């Protein structure tokens, strides 16, 4: 190859001066313009440069990229751009590394006007880099990069390539007389910022990249800087690896080209000579004589002076080397002084330590201690604003078929909620799990008392009538329909709105007046805030039956928690001012809710909105429990809990829930079985239709109560988890057998019973098959699509629960029967191997055990038992769905659950 050459170089260079590198007339085409990085960076460059991006390429599709000064047309290929009559002279490549060389060839092939290519992509292979160089040298095209942030011509207000100067290039890139060439993209901007503090602006900034091949390297940069009338000095940032700098110096010294402007050079990376593998910039690893110390020596010899010493600033007219980048302003000032030149403008400050944000935990010794200073504008204002923010902030995204709350563990196939498997969750009490679904962490001991208090109180705070529930049941509504209708009617009732408003106000006040609250003495400003929010003249100040309970609770304990300290401060202030707090119940309930979830919010586990909505979640769950009573007229406990004013704060929500569902006082074993039942049904992953119902409702921007309604509407008898069929199946097997399900089988031969059933089932199955009826009735709750194929199969979830029960000496005859049954089915040749007893069986056997005596004594009908099984499933899942609702509200977008048109089909 003969190749093109441009004097004085033995290779091609397409410019004479840095001014020409990129100009106001440059027309840019960005490849992969809609990629994640380019989509953010290109509009900023385009707007900063006054609209220099004339086209973009997104392979295979057309469109537009929106910018504030007009949209950039997007084409399918470079050829498509050219065919549409758009001319450009600079290509910018944002593709993944494997595609970069292809794009270079495409640009060179189809665009005869092409002058330069800027390659932003990192980790382009050395092989592709050398091929790119040969291609572009033959074509007469300059390349900047790869692995760079491009070029900025500050005088022309033009930025091409990557994100030099970040989102606000004008902040860092001030017009001036220094040209920057930096091996680091970040340092290109950082050096510009540092120089600004010394009064120096930028003419042109080049982020060269630091791959093995630097296509726009120091020799041609210095040559172009010499010919640039705007540039008086050069700032260089250099890393080890490569002989570009040595070559530039040699060529200057041998007068291959003239260079008379001073340079301030920072070389870093001495440590890299000791490593055998690149870290950071590829190609920076030293080998041979191009390590950092060698480079320092090259420059020191060229400058004729040692490294810059701020104490004794000695420089020559050729410049000086500095030990660290913070010395750029000082060294540049010394160089300008030597030349008799003035800086470009008044310096903007200095680079000394300026503490923006600090803890107040420790007193540091002198020399380390320093005051917090006001941050630069606009950051000072941002600090004020953000200081008010609290809680986790999730990135909004399309949450269709996604969840940040639940998943099915791919290894164990066990569902997890907030990282805890349902097996682990099934060991928690119901109230603990309710707390976890909201807070994402386990509650502390005091939290459990508080959540019990709130849930039990919310059981009572219903405003509706139960008559419509009765009517719905008469009309054949299933439990989910009844609950859905009533929960939907909760809407966003005033109590919940008020709790939310109070919670929000409290969080603001605590954030703003934390010091006052801790000191126990409200400042005048805080007093004014309290008076304005709590003591409205038109306030509804009526105390209710619940006010006394709430007051007792908020004054009881947990004084260390800011929300309660603040609540108590408000109450004291209210007393002293003789002004009653308006909406006192909501205010006190909000105080408890904020207190409950304060720590998870501070830990950024949950969002502020979740804390504000916590009252709503707890209220709805409590209401669902209240509405789940099977037969309220016979249930004395329900009447006491819901209708009477008496309140027993020491009783757990689990116990009350049990009483509502089973109309009796639970034993410890009963409570354990209830928590297992509900724990296991919390979730089966985000793909379940129950979760989808909630998510889709949120996606349509409904109230929280409607999200629960959505979930309820998406449940039914098809849910295996409700154990509906298994209850009936087991009842049929044991209807005529005298058993106590909680005791060991004793004289009852479960194996014989199971064998009898297996034989009967074999006969039934055979008959059905013979008559061609393949849709014959299956035995419910055995076998599983995943846990199968072995000679003996086990569902690990069922196995876990069974062992848990065994370890607590809790018997369940129905479960034992199921295990006999799967073995007998195999022994009788009905199944090829021993099927697993799946986790749904656990739900059925526990339910049936808990209600067996009532069923046998005809206190409850089989239909009601089946209804109860369904209700248990609904309650467990409602708790789990709470996590999905919160997650979707935090992360999702409006309408994100709709199915894209491309995924829907019309069928005949």
């Amino acid at each position: 190859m003969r190749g093109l050459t441009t004097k004085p170089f033995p290779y091609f260079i397409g410019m004479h001066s840095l001014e020409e590198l990129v100009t106001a007339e440059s027309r840019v085409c960005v490849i992969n313009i809609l990629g994640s990085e380019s989509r953010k960076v290109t509009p900023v460059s385009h707007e900063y440069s006054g609209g220099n991006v004339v086209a973009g390429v997104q392979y295979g599709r057309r469109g537009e990229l929106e910018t504030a000064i007009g949209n950039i047309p997007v084409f399918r290929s470079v050829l498509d751009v050219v065919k549409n009559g758009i001319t450009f002279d600079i290509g910018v490549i944002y593709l993944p590394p494997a595609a970069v060389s292809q794009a270079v060839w495409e640009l060179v092939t189809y665009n005869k006007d092409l002058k330069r290519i800027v390659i932003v992509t990192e980790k382009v292979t050395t092989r592709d880099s050398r091929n790119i160089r040969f291609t572009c040298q033959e074509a007469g095209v300059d390349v900047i990069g790869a692995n760079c942030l491009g070029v900025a011509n500050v005088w022309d207000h033009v930025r091409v390539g990557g994100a030099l100067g970040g989102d606000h290039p004008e902040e860092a890139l001030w017009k001036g007389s220094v040209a920057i060439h930096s091996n680091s993209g970040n340092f290109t901007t950082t050096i510009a910022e540092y120089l600004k503090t010394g009064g120096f602006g930028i003419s042109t900034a080049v982020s060269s990249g630091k791959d093995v091949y630097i296509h726009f390297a120091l020799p041609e940069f210095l040559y172009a800087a010499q010919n640039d009338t705007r540039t008086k000095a050069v700032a260089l940032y250099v890393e080890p690896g490569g002989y570009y700098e040595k070559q530039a110096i040699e060529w200057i010294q041998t007068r291959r080209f003239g260079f008379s402007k001073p340079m301030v050079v920072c070389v870093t990376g001495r440590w890299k000579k000791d490593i055998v593998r690149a870290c950071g910039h590829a190609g920076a690893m030293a080998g041979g004589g191009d390590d950092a110390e060698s480079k320092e020596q090259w420059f020191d010899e060229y400058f004729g002076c040692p490294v810059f010493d701020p104490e004794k600033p000695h420089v020559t007219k050729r410049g000086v080397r500095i030990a660290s980048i913070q010395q750029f302003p000082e060294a540049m000032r010394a160089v300008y002084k030597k030349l008799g030149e003035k800086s470009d403008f008044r310096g903007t400050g200095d680079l000394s330590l300026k503490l923006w944000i600090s803890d107040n935990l420790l007193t540091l010794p002198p020399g380390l201690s320093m005051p917090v200073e006001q941050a630069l504008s606009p950051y000072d204002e941002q600090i004020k604003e953000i200081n008010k923010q609290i809680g986790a902030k999730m990135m909004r995204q399309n949450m269709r078929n996604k969840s940040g709350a639940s998943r099915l563990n791919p290894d164990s196939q066990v569902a997890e909620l907030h990282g805890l498997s349902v097996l682990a969750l099934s060991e928690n009490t119901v109230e603990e799990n309710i707390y976890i679904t909201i807070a994402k962490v386990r509650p502390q001991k005091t939290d459990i008392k508080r959540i019990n208090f709130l849930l039990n109180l919310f059981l009572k705070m219903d405003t509706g009538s139960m008559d419509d529930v009765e009517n719905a049941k008469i009309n054949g509504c299933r439990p989910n329909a009844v609950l859905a209708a009533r929960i939907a009617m909760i809407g966003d009732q005033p109590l919940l709105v008020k709790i939310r408003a109070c919670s929000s106000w409290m969080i603001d006040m605590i954030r703003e007046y934390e010091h006052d609250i801790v000191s126990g003495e409200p400042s005048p400003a805080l007093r004014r805030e309290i008076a304005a929010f709590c003591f409205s003249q038109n306030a509804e100040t009526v105390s209710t039956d619940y006010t006394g309970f709430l007051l007792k609770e908020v004054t009881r304990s947990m004084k260390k928690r800011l929300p309660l300290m603040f609540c108590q401060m408000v109450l004291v202030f209210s007393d002293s001012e003789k002004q009653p707090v308006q909406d006192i119940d909501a205010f006190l309930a909000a105080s408890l809710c904020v207190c409950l979830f304060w720590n998870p919010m501070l830990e950024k586990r949950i969002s502020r909105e979740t804390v504000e909505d916590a009252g709503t979640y707890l209220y709805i769950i409590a209401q669902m429990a209240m509405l789940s009573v099977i037969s309220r007229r016979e249930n004395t406990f329900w009447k006491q809990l819901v209708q009477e004013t008496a309140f027993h704060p020491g009783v757990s929500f689990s116990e009350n829930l049990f009483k509502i569902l089973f109309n009796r006082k639970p034993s410890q074993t009963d409570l354990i079985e209830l928590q297992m039942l509900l724990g296991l049904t919390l979730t089966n992953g985000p793909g379940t239709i129950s979760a989808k119902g909630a998510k889709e409702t949120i996606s349509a921007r409904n109230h929280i109560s409607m999200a629960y309604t959505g979930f309820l509407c998406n449940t039914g008898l098809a849910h295996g988890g409700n154990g509906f069929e298994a209850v009936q199946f087991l009842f049929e097997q044991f209807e005529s057998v005298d058993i106590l399900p909680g005791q060991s089988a004793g004289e009852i031969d479960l194996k014989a019973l199971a064998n009898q059933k297996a034989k009967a089932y074999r006969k039934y199955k055979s008959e059905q098959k013979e008559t061609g009826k393949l849709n014959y009735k299956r035995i419910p709750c055995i076998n599983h699509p995943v846990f199968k194929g072995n000679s003996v199969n086990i569902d690990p979830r069922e196995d876990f629960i069974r062992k848990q029960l065994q370890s607590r000496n809790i018997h369940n005859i129905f479960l034992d029967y199921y295990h006999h049954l799967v073995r007998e089915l195999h022994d009788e040749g009905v199944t090829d191997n021993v099927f697993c007893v799946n986790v749904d069986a656990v739900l059925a056997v526990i339910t049936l055990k808990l209600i067996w005596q009532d069923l046998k004594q005809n206190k409850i009908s089989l239909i009601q038992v089946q209804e109860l099984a369904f209700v248990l499933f609904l309650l467990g899942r409602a708790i789990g769905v709470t996590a999905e609702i919160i997650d979707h509200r935090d992360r999702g977008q409006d309408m994100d659950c709709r199915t894209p048109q491309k995924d829907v089909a019309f069928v005949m």
Partner: protein
Amino acid sequence: MQIAGLKYGSRLLELVEFPVAQSLDGDASMEALQQMLDQCGKLVVKPVFTGGVGKKGKAGLIQFVNSLTDAMKAKEELYFSTHNWGSRRVRANGVIFEEFVPSDIEVYFSISNSTRKRKPIFTISPHGGMDVEALAPEQKRVVWIDPFIGIKSFDITNALVDTGCPERYISSLVRHLPKLWDLFDNYGFTTLELNPVRMKKQGNQFVPVACDFRAAFDQDNPSWRRLNLPKTVLQSELTPFESEINRLRTYQGQSDVLEMNPEGSIIPFMFGGGANSAATEMLGDRAIFTSDFGGNPPYEKMLGISRIVYKYWLEKANLLLVIGGKANNTDIFITFKGIFDALRDHMAQTGWKPVYVIVGRGGPNLIRGMFYAKDILDRLKLPYKMFGYDTSMIEVLNYAMKIDRWWTEQGQAQYSAKARVI
């Protein structure tokens, strides 16, 4: 990513049918060794190091043997021999027995990329067997290569003639050496070096035989995977920490780490190649590792990286440093969220530990990121200082080192006694 020696080098050379000295692994049977001795007369015994360890000859780690007894003795001596290579002290794990090829010349040949010529080059000398840098200019030639054509035969001929290679060898060298470009170009090499190539007489002809091999690979070029080298050959260069982080590596970088001093006291999250270079230099052996997490890593990646970092180092670290210049594109909020979410979760799982946090950073969403960190650190009751980009990064590093010293000497103990353990 480097390899040296014929253990794997011979496999690579066979891909392009370049002749290579016969060799046997250290675990070869006595019978096989005796057979090779019978055939070759003399063997070369070399220790096997993983990675690109060189200059074994100079270190006296190569032995020539002509009997089975001597071969076994050499094996015993060299099997776990140690070698100072660069700044590292490395230990062998095995030996290789290679055929000794009698030859009256030794040829040096390498292919690499030249930053002076900005082209691929080959370097050739018929005076090989020693460091190429030690050769006089007239004894070697450096010739650039057109990457779309490869090594041209006439370039080799001219170079060998110019450097005084005996004519009887030129033809066979010209026939075989251009094949090496295929190996170099197609499998992600950045350097390929054969030194020495010895001229083996076969009948009336001479065949160039590679008697040693060194290569470095481009870690950004996945083509080397096609060589099917055992993973251990290249991964052995990585520490378990580096290896775990490396699994998160993508073409966008964002997860470059290099373990520096496991006994160090500072966990440095560095952002950007420049910050990586400058900060590592400043921190010296206080830095447990050096890193470059720049390039706008997504949250999941930053979280994953941070989890691994804490798993390995938080227990022994005094100071957590987040350092970078004014980011152009990296979202500070996203990166800080990843770093500090992982810190919170790690402490929740493994227990609280007093660690000082210093931040020096600029860029998009800076204040949101800093306040995100602040809230978590407040909750964890960990002390911190955060500086913006109007403070020099170097000043922040200096300050961090002072804090690290004070924290190590007294601060941490004082604070631990005072702080409520969470």
